[in-house]
């Protein structure tokens, strides 16, 4: 008996519709996040991450409604990220039915926000999202920095130190994305994943770069991640979640089948 490594499909949602394309073969409405989340739940996804990329305030209300609908039909944990800047944002999402919120940029600009959020809502629902880029050159000791604005702005903050600080402030989980690997489909940044996972006592979700099922295995075995997040390999039906889980189990990874 052991805790299962989690597989988490991620949906990018804008104004209540999934963007970046989801092409299940037999789905009627490819853009409805609730329908897609329910499909993943039935396939055996361990959690759902919902990344809200809506810019406008009106759109935000739509997001809350989408989370409400999702929580009424999908009975696995739901994390909502994107644009979480205040305790009021968190309260709205949790009341709508989210189980966790993911804080990204707001933590970089105001680390105390993480402390305030964890004290008010509990560490178990506070995920800190870290966007990391390698800044060391070839042959140097590997080093990664926090980037904001979708990976365009460097902050000079060391990722491993930052992850430790976020946990000290109350983060209950780290969602770690390699901006170098994101969208490349060549696998997670395993050095980064392992460095952060070994540095913090809380679970780490590896994100960015999954293209094959071996990448998922590598993320938990070599990268020591507690969970793996992927979008396109599932959205485009390259692999189903049961296939991914069976593949991982066959290679000795504990999963929930």
């Amino acid at each position, binding site marked *: 008996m052991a805790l299962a490594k989690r597989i988490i499909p991620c949906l990018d949602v804008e104004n209540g519709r999934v963007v970046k394309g989801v092409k299940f073969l037999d789905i009627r409405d490819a853009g409805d996040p609730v329908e897609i989340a329910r499909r993943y739940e039935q396939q055996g996804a361990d959690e759902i991450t919902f990344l809200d990329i809506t810019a406008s305030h009106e759109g935000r209300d739509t997001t809350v409604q989408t989370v409400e609908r999702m929580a*009424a039909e999908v*009975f696995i944990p739901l994390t909502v990220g994107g644009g979480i800047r205040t305790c009021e944002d968190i309260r709205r999402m*949790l009341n709508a039915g989210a189980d966790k919120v993911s804080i990204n940029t707001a933590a970089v600009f105001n680390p105390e926000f993480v402390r305030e959020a964890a004290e008010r809502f509990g560490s*178990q629902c506070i995920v800190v999202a870290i966007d990391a880029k390698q800044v060391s050159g070839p042959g140097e000791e590997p080093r990664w920095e926090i980037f904001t604005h979708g990976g365009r702005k460097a902050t000079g903050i060391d990722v491993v130190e930052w992850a430790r600080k976020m946990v000290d402030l109350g983060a*209950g989980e780290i969602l770690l994305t390699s901006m170098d690997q994101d969208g490349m489909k060549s696998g997670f940044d395993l050095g980064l994943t392992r460095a952060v996972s070994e540095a913090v006592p809380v679970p780490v979700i590896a994100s960015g770069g999954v293209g094959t099922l071996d990448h998922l295995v590598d993320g938990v075995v070599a990268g020591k991640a507690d969970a793996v997040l992927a979008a396109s390999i599932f959205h485009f039906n390259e692999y189903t979640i049961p296939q991914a889980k069976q593949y991982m189990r066959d290679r000795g990874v504990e999963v929930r089948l």
Partner: protein
Amino acid sequence: MSSIAVIDYGMGNLHSVAKALEHVQPGVEVLVTADPQQVREADRVLLPGVGAIRDCMAEIRRLGVDAEVAEAIRSGKPFLGICVGFQALMSFSEENGGVECLNEYEGRVNFFGDNLKDQQGERLKVPHMGWNQVEQTVDHPLWQGIDNGSRFYFVHSYYVRVNNPALVAGTCEYGVPFDVALAQNNVFAVQFHPEKSQKAGLQLLQNFLNWDGKR
């Protein structure tokens, strides 16, 4: 149609558990409430809870939920505790420097520790977060239709040890063995979140709604 009071003492999100109950039994009347009258009149009572035990216990006492829980347990109607709603029934928790709990059942709530390791010596993360297997140690109406060893969703840093082994209904292991379900008379309490545990969890909630409170 039966009614269920989900006791609201201001901690955490009760939306999920209410939605899950409505999903497994459409038409069931779910009252999210701290009103003693409503709790007393409901056919079933559910004590949920997330967050830190000190704040939970403070609110439980401030709102008089302690008396409501004691009354519900003694009333004989089906009672379900979830997560902190299970821990709160014990005597004492070592969280937040030590907190006296409701002492409905003798037992302690302990920290998993900073140096938790599995049998292979690999470090284990705390909180214990994710899907773990539950060993059903007794036959019980609430386990009906759920395979022994099914995985449920957990998220907690403190675990329960019940003093009287005869009250334990389920166990789990994460670095240490611990108790994840307690059953006595009309009371069932679990450490995991049935409302987030997909099929197995919904089955348990369905069983609770069908249960007459007897073994």
